[in-house]
């Protein structure tokens, strides 16, 4: 009873509990080797794509702005990480923060574009910018090493090298945890409310003293920062950055994660990232269906259509409303979700 009350009243508890369980599983895995190393690599993918999805969700779900060029920021973050660690040998933390901050500046520039455009036109413009930057990655050999790609080594903190993927999984999970807490706090305070207000009614937001100029830029800057950090994690995890990764397909995957998992929801972002990483892999092992080329794209498209048709609030939110909330509402004899005062 007290346990459920804690669960319902303190939203942090959900995240902290989830993270602790995850960290314990990873620790046990470190000792016993529960997962196949392939699964560990997939989990690392889920973690960095979760950071991407949370960043993209701030933009699309909370602030109501669309961008189909965010793959470019992820690529930029990844290349920056490779460039900085290969040429300047900075440590893991400064590198990852720089790989977030520099794309953030470019995010602000994209935000300036977004001030003049809306909806479909914004989508077209950002798609154009994304494709342009993809070609810049191919041709800017000094920075990206062109089609040969760049290699880099695993990160090191205070002399401890994360050579084992299991160790790196733990490290990236901790970063994801910090990102989730920071985002949760931000969303449930003045800035987050201003972003949502801007999405629901621009006129009313302005009349209440919210500068659309400022908060559109904040939305683009924050999401570019998150996506840049995720790109940095990508570079460290894969240890190889290639220009063909950062095309429009990746931007559309980001969109799919957020829509499938749940708009304007942190849990939804993580769910969406998990869905997009795991489901195509599971399907690939099936007979017949698994042999179709590009099955992952077909599946993503299909999942997106089904989710929009049957659970437009996203898988995570649907599950939450249907099963989890009724569960503890029943346990606590509450009349409505969220408690009453």
């Amino acid at each position, binding site marked *: 009873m007290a346990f459920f009350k804690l669960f319902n009243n303190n939203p942090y508890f959900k995240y902290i509990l989830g993270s602790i369980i995850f960290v314990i599983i990873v620790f046990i895995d470190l000792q016993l080797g529960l997962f196949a190393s392939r699964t560990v690599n997939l989990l690392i993918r889920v973690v960095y794509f979760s950071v991407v999805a949370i960043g993209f969700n701030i933009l699309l779900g909370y602030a109501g702005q669309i961008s189909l060029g965010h793959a470019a920021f992820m690529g930029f973050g990844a290349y920056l990480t490779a460039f900085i660690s290969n040429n300047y040998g900075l440590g893991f933390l400064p590198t990852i923060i720089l790989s977030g901050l520099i794309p953030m500046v470019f995010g602000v520039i994209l935000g300036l574009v977004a001030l003049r455009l809306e909806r479909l036109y914004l989508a077209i413009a950002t798609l154009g910018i994304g494709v342009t930057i993809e070609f810049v990655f191919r041709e800017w050999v000094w920075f990206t090493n062109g089609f040969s790609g760049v290699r880099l080594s695993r990160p090191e903190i205070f002399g401890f090298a994360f050579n084992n993927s299991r160790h790196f999984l733990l490290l990236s999970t901790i970063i994801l945890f910090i990102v989730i807490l*920071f*985002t949760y*706090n*931000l969303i449930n*305070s*003045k*800035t*987050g*409310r*201003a972003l*949502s*207000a801007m*999405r*629901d*009614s621009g*006129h*009313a*937001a*302005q*009349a*209440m*003293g*919210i*500068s*659309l100029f400022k908060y559109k830029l*904040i939305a683009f800057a924050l999401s570019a920062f998150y996506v840049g950090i995720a790109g940095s994690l990508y570079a460290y995890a894969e240890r190889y950055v290639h220009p063909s990764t950062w095309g429009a397909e990746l931007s559309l995957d980001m969109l799919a994660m957020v829509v499938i998992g749940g708009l*304007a929801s942190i849990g939804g972002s993580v769910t969406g990232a998990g869905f997009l990483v795991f489901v195509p892999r599971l399907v690939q092992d099936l007979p017949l269906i698994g042999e179709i080329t590009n099955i992952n794209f077909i599946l993503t498209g299909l999942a997106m259509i089904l989710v929009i048709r049957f659970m437009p609030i996203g898988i995570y939110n649907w599950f939450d409303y249907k099963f989890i909330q009724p569960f503890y509402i029943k346990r606590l004899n509450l009349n*409505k*979700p*969220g*408690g*009453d*005062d």
Partner: protein
Amino acid sequence: MKKLEVKNMTKRFGGLVAVDDLSFKVEEGSIFGLIGPNGAGKTTVFNSITRFYNPEEGEVILRTKGSKIDLLDYKTHQIADLGLARTFQNVELFGKMTVLDNMLVGAHNNIKTNFLIEGFRLPGFKKKENQAKTKAMEILNFLGLKKLAHQFADSQPYGVQKLLELGRVLMSEPEIILLDEPAAGMNDSETDKLSDLLLKIRDEYNLTVFLVEHDMGLVMDICDEIVVINFGKSIMQGTPKEIQVSPEVQEAYLGGDDEF
């Protein structure tokens, strides 16, 4: 003392003159009405004062905290901080947010935190946030909406949404509020309740109320002074009694005899 003065304001849309050399003054602490037939330019006046439109000529003088300022020197989002807040003709709420969050957006300028304080919950956050929350609950209680605090705004009935918009305006600690047709879509008994509420709000929060309204019953009941406009021009300004007997006003609403 005059709280708000509109001086020789003109707003054109292409060849159409929506507001034509309009001047009026709003007394501090009064309930001031702006009326006129459909298409007279009432909402345009509101939008020009709150800077959603850019009037070509004129001045809008607001007296706030002892100083006189021209609102036309400021941007739309800066107006709320000067102590002037407005509602909209078609209720503009943040539908996907809860009733409480809608109220807290109203206090946007009064919660002084930045994203670092918010993201890491640094010291000082809780105090500022809780102050705003307490105030929001007080106002919701005052409006009788306390029980709905955690429900979504767009799932509320129209009457509640209208009240909530009023509550959100109060959260910004305004000195003067501009209400665009507060009684639109209400029946007689709801309108009566609204008149009582507006008087109560004026006294409780020491506000000046400036409203655009079609419901003559409400306007004549509660307004201290009224300005009548037609085709963007001021026809007359006076007390409700003077307005009611004025032949010019009757002509504007019902049409003159000589035209036919």
